[in-house]
């Protein structure tokens, strides 16, 4: 039996770092990813498509996205099983409840695992989040009531991965990996963690299209083959239509603003999608770092984010600290500022003012 697993598509999620156009492109990319995924399912002739939650964001989903989902799912002849997650939790007002889904769609609606036969001897147990938070684990204390191959589909947090996964993740429907075997389940197909994970008895496919910068790992849809004994083999397929890149650009040695511009332009040349450029190194006080100008270098990209947290100004602080001038006194007094970043910005600004710079904007 062949299944296609995906999760955490997060349709209609916001992208606070992006411009309006870039954010729209990113949202459109999500839809295209789903379209690719459904095409893959048809191409691979899978028996069913499994979505382990967070298909969309309940609080943001637009009517257009609801219709897109409904129509996309209706176009395929594959059976699709949906297990609502904490972002697309099931309620009477959920699109899961109000949309006119095609017959090939099965939505798990109970807060506990309930069975659906996939084929003779193969049962899929699924559960739904019925609230955006405080959903109890699905596997603790659960036990299948039948033989054959028992699979599970849910949006859940494996506890041991909380520290390893991205920060800020809440333990929605938490469970321990051992609970799956204890429940008599052969394998659990899960969502929530965006970083992919293939464990012995469970699989996190990760988000199929990039959501944030810094995402690592081969993520996307997972083609699953279930053997008669319940063993699974997994094959990841990239269905992403956009890319995110993290680039670090050192500005050490830059003599002037053009050096800065050239360095950034070179770093993002040839890239597409969304790019986050982190500027680092020491630059001379007189060197202009024009963030607006640098931003315009990314017009060929879906989005460009420029960070300056690792950038500092090359003041001879040791000499300034000894200088019996107002400038020296200013630098000495500024050493009392505890926040290093803030101190650096204050010192740079004050020194640029004392140096007579007309442009005091501090990058």
């Amino acid at each position, binding site marked *: 039996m062949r299944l296609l697993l995906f999760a955490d598509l997060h349709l209609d999620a916001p992208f606070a770092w992006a411009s309006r156009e870039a954010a729209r492109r990113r949202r459109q990319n999500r839809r295209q990813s789903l379209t690719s995924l459904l095409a893959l399912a048809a191409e691979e002739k899978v028996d069913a498509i499994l979505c382990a939650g967070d298909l969309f964001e309940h609080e943001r989903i*637009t*009517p257009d996205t609801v219709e897109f989902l409904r129509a996309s799912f209706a176009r395929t002849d594959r059976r699709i099983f949906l297990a609502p997650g904490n972002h697309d939790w099931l309620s009477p*007002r959920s699109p899961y409840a109000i949309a006119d889904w095609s017959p090939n769609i099965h939505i798990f609606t109970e807060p506990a695992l309930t069975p659906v036969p996939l084929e003779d001897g193969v049962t899929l147990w699924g559960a739904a989040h019925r609230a955006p938070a405080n959903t109890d684990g699905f596997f603790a204390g659960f036990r299948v009531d039948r033989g054959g191959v028992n699979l599970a589909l849910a949006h859940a947090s494996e506890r041991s991965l909380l520290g390893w996964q991205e920060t800020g993740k809440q333990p929605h429907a938490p469970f321990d990996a051992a609970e799956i075997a204890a429940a008599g389940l052969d394998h659990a197909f899960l969502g929530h963690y965006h970083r992919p994970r293939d464990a012995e008895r469970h699989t996190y496919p990760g988000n199929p299209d990039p959501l944030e910068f810094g995402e690592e790992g081969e993520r996307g849809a997972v083609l699953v083959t279930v053997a008669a004994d319940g063993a699974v083999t997994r094959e990841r397929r990239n269905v992403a239509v956009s890319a995110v890149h993290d680039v670090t650009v050192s500005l050490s040695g830059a003599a002037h603003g053009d050096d800065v511009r050239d360095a950034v332009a070179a770093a993002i040349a040839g890239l597409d999608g969304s790019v986050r450029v982190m500027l680092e190194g020491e630059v001379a006080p007189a060197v202009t770092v024009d963030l607006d100008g640098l931003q315009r270098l990314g017009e060929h990209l879906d989005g460009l984010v420029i960070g300056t947290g690792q950038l500092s100004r090359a003041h001879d602080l040791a000499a300034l600290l000894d200088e019996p*001038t107002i400038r020296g*006194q200013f630098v000495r007094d500024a050493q009392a500022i505890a926040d290093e970043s803030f101190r650096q910005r*204050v010192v740079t*600004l004050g020194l640029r*003012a004392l*140096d007579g710079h007309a442009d005091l904007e501090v990058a």
Partner: protein
Amino acid sequence: MRIERVVARAFGPFHGEVLDLAPGLNVIAGPNEAGKSTWHAAIRLALTGVRRGKGPGTAAERQLAERHRPWGQDDQWLVEARITLDDGRRIDIAQDLAGKVACRATDVGLGRDVSNEILDGTPDASRWLGLDREAFASTVCVSQAQILSVADAAEQLQEHMQRAAATRGTDATAAEAIARLEQFRRDAVGADTVAAKGPLRTARNRLAAAEAALADARARHEAYLEQAAGLEQAERRAEEARRALDEAEAALARRDSLRIAEKLALVEQLSARHPRPPQPIAELDDGARQVARALQAWDDRPQLPSLAGASAEALEAELASLPPAPEGDTRPHASVLDAARGLDLADEALRQHGAPPESGAPLDDSWTPQQLRELARRLRAPQLPDAARLEAQLASARAESGAVPSRWQLPALAAVVLLGLGGALGILVDPVIGVGIAVAGAAAAAVAWFLGGSRRRARARVAALETALAPYRQAAAAAERDRHAAIATARDAGLPIEPEAVDTLADRAASAAHDHQLAAAWDARHASLEARQATARAALLGALQERGAEVSGLEPREALARYVAASEERSIQAERAARAEGLGRQLEARRVAEAALGAATRARQAADVRIREAALIARLDADAEPTGLVAALRAWQEHRSAQIERQAGEVAEWERLQALLAGTSLAALRSEAAERARRAEELDGALVSPAARALVDAPGLEGRIARLREELATEQGAADRLGGSLRQLAAGLPSVAEAEESAAAAAAEMERVESAAQVIDEALGLLRAAEEQVHRSLAPVLNDAVARWLPDVCDGAYDEVSVDPATLGVSVKERESGQWRQVRLLSEGTREQIYLLLRVAMAQHLVTTGETAPLLLDEVTAQSDGTRKRRLLEVLHGLSTERQIVLFTHDDEVARWADASLDPGRDRLVRLASPWSSDPGLLPAPMQTVG
């Protein structure tokens, strides 16, 4: 630090030229183009070198290179210097200004490279002073321009000090930096007032708008989901209504199918039994109906009634003899009786009033009793008892007055004589005698007085009584006059004049008046009773007339009697007339009975005829006895009924068949039954539940379907309306994600501006505090430096100096007046000198290593007159005892002063030759030194 020598290996026009300098004041004099600026630059670059870095360098560096690179040898730009530090070390510095490679600093004594001590890319000796290249230039070098600026603009001195205090003179003053930061804050942050339009307010407004838009987007999104859920529920209700309708319609179809199948079976059965229409029974039925009607008429024929009593004719005759009912009252009407009783009472009252009283004597109405009594009173004599008493008293008084003698004259005479005599004797003879006689005279006088008084009192009483009597006497006289008038009146009237007689007449007149009053009262009562009687009579007549009685010319009581008699007659007539009604009813009844008898007779005859006619229909003997015919007809009828009943059954079945077919054919019915069965089969899927299947036999299924259709229409309508509303809502639904992104962007911008504000405010605060602190510490340093040399600079005119810590403004106190004057108000020369003193102090202050900084002065005396120039030079000469000073000048007067004033042991004058000079003493070496 002292500079011993500078060697221009390849520097501008120089190639290997050497400039040796003394430790004190060095005056480098020469005309324009003699190389002063070149040596000035060579000294500075020999000490500091140039920055080593990528790129073309700064504009100042490029300008320096353009001016001082060796002419024609771009690849070599070399300069060297030897300096002596305060710790005694002698250092040779070589600067490869072009390549910036062969640069080094070498300790001459140790032969060791000490470049690292001062390395800033290349060796920079200003590091030994705690300075850098830029700071060295601004601290150690004093240019002609700076002196000129101080001389031309008084406030420049203060600004120079501020700039030096802030950045060692390399950049802005603290005030400029603060102003720049403040302007930057206005530009980058701005105010936060409502009306402000700066970045902070703009960001705040943008954030507020974005948050409001986000809240709106979320609310509308929530409403959308809510409404969508409502639509889903409405559609579910519509679906349920549709399902219920489907069930009902399926049940109805099932039932219709079953019923038409039953009908078809029946039709087929009837059709088989009656392939053709049965024979009509009308003919049979018609004869039977006639026989039946004849028998019915026979059975219904009436019995002949029996008649008794008077015939109708007799009754009619008797009735004709009776009088008609009278008109008018058959007994006296109550109104007449009441009126008659009223008349009786009036007559009785008149009777009881009786006869009139007897009248008295005729009344003489010329004198009323009152007039007579008044006349009698007047005829009586007046009675005045008080007057009589007073008259008696008067008589007594008169008598008394007449009895008193007139004896007072003598004693009076005696008194006169005695008094006269006594007086004369007293005067003439003997006073004593005179007095004695006079006393006697006085006594006589007293007696005379007493006697005269009694007479006077009696007369007075008489007078008083007379007075009291006067009114009485007048009244008595008036009364008497009236009595005489009354007498005359009585006589004229023929009345007696005696009062008593008149009184008697008065009594008689009063009695007569009373009798007349009684008679008048009786008359009045009598008249009233007569009027009542007349009224009663009229009322009786009226009542009688009202009742139709004849009253004309009759007395009431006669008319009444006639009325009563007439009533009694009418009463008798009425009793007779009353019999007519009973006779009428009796006559009517008789007539009806006689008519009924006729009708019965006719009916029985007709029944007999119809029986005989029926006998003909039944083919019986019509002339037979009727009773026998009837029996025979009944037998015939029974036989015929059985025959008709059979025929009627066939007709009824035929008619039922036709009704079942309802105008269609059996084939059509079969087709319809098949269609219904197919329809029922088609809808049968809806009848899955037992409840649905039970509907097949449920009553009122059609009504249920109608209700369900209505319910479905209602629910579907509600769902359609909700769907339309939802589509509208969805069409204008803002993107929550985009609203969140806008809010995040606005928040980020707000954070950026607020962060910028914090950074700027912090920098401003620190800068202001640093300015205050540095100025406060620098002020006494500058103060001491100037105070030390002030008497020399101003030739004793000022003896104290004060530096304002806030502004570094300098003031001096005038020795003679004791007044403080700001330096900017002093003469240009004094300002120049004080500026130099301040620069020296500032240079030393800014040097943080303790090393003594030399001073390189360029044409600082250029604009001074002779006196100021000498004074300045003397100050510099004095200063040079503490630090090396190199003064470049083109002024020959300065050179002459140096020639005359410098100490060859510690100072040096260097004369530079003009390129065009022919003085061999100055050529070829560009310098000539003394000392």
